[in-house]
């Protein structure tokens, strides 16, 4: 078992004994396939909690063991794909970095075209932000962007009285590797922004949505 840096508890996963307390029991081989399916489909890091719910296994430890054994299998077969366990216990399936550059000649679609991407970035920076404000800044075509972003699960809409508030979803945070805590996420974005020597313009509005919309 030649395994590198990542902490791995060896091979409890290989034991055939059934794990306890499963919601809808699947055997380990099937759980492994379900984890593989989830990691493949998402393309971004998944929490153990998510993997538990996909497999129906309640024990995070158990799920982590199975995910690790899948990770090891990928290591052993030495293909172009790898599964990586992140420091916080999440798992992600990805292309080994050396192959990313080699397949550049294939044309890749952007996740979003320019318009919706701008709308998304604005929501991420000003969230939670009233939908009306997004429309005011981004123009009426933003209705369409918002519908698309909702459809893709990148943002969420909630009602606060008569106001519709928009904010980014967990999938958004996970995909872009940002904090799920909205306050922290904005700090991260601001920091990145300033790193580039850009000025964010006006002061961001307070995060409490009940207050008047962002005026300097």
């Amino acid at each position: 078992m030649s395994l590198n840096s990542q902490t791995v508890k060896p091979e409890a996963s290989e034991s055939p004994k059934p794990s306890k307390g499963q919601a809808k029991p699947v055997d380990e081989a099937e759980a492994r396939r379900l984890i593989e399916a989830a990691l493949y489909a998402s393309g971004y890091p998944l929490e153990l909690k998510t993997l538990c719910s996909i497999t129906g296994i309640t024990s995070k430890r158990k799920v982590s063991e199975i995910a690790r054994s899948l990770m090891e299998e990928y290591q052993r077969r030495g293909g172009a794909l790898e599964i990586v366990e992140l420091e916080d216990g999440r798992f992600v399936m990805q292309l080994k970095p050396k192959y990313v550059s080699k397949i550049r000649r294939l044309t890749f679609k952007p996740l979003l075209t320019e318009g919706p991407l701008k709308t998304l970035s604005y929501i991420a920076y000003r969230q939670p932000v009233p939908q009306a404000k997004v429309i005011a800044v981004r123009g009426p075509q933003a209705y369409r962007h918002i519908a698309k972003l909702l459809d893709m699960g990148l943002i969420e809409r909630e009602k606060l009285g008569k106001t519709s508030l928009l904010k980014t979803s967990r999938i958004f945070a996970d995909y872009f590797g940002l904090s799920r805590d909205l306050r922290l996420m904005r700090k991260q974005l601001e920091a990145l922004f300033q790193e580039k020597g850009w000025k964010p313009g006006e002061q961001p509005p307070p995060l409490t949505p009940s207050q008047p919309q962002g005026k300097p």
Partner: protein
Amino acid sequence: MSGEENKPFWLKHPWKILFDLARLTKIRPWDLNIASLLSSFLREMRKMGYIDFNASGTALLSSSIILRLQSERIFEAEIEEEKKGIERIFDYVPPPLQLPFRFELTVTGLEDILEALKEVLKAEKESLHVKVKPVTPPPPDFFNEYDRMVLQWEQEVESFYEALKASQLRGELYFSQLVQGKPWREIVKTFLMLIFMAARGLVELYQDEEFADIKIVLTAEVSRVEP
């Protein structure tokens, strides 16, 4: 009885429907012949010797509501027919085939978010200096059935316009030619599409007199002729 007699003419049959807004929304809009109702209303008004602008205004409002209801009915007509189950037929439907899922690596990263943000914040700053136009709130159910119909309608208008542009009849195009032999719903649809296109400045419509044929001129052609 005498009360009924003393009422102004427009509160009597058949015009009174124009003055009962509550009832207006409950009728079947296509049962009303607005053109003849309004013509006779105007004739009666002239007979009175003076114009009651209150009544005329209300009649105008009601007519526009009826026209709108009529066009909405066109959107809904097909779906409603289905919903009544008139033409529901049985056929063997195979089981659903689940499409396999294919992951796609996308090239959008945090860097792109930041670039986009830079642009947007610039626009935001500008929008704070400029008076922001009042924003119409979206309809409650944003992508509901009606929206979809409108979208479909927009597409139909677009392809209809393309067809007109491609047609051989340019310059000498009349409504009657377009709708010859078509069922009534198609005729109404075609008419509404033309109204739509006229409102958007894609075509100009000429009608010399009431009920005469409508001449259709593509705006692109007008501008080509008159630079």
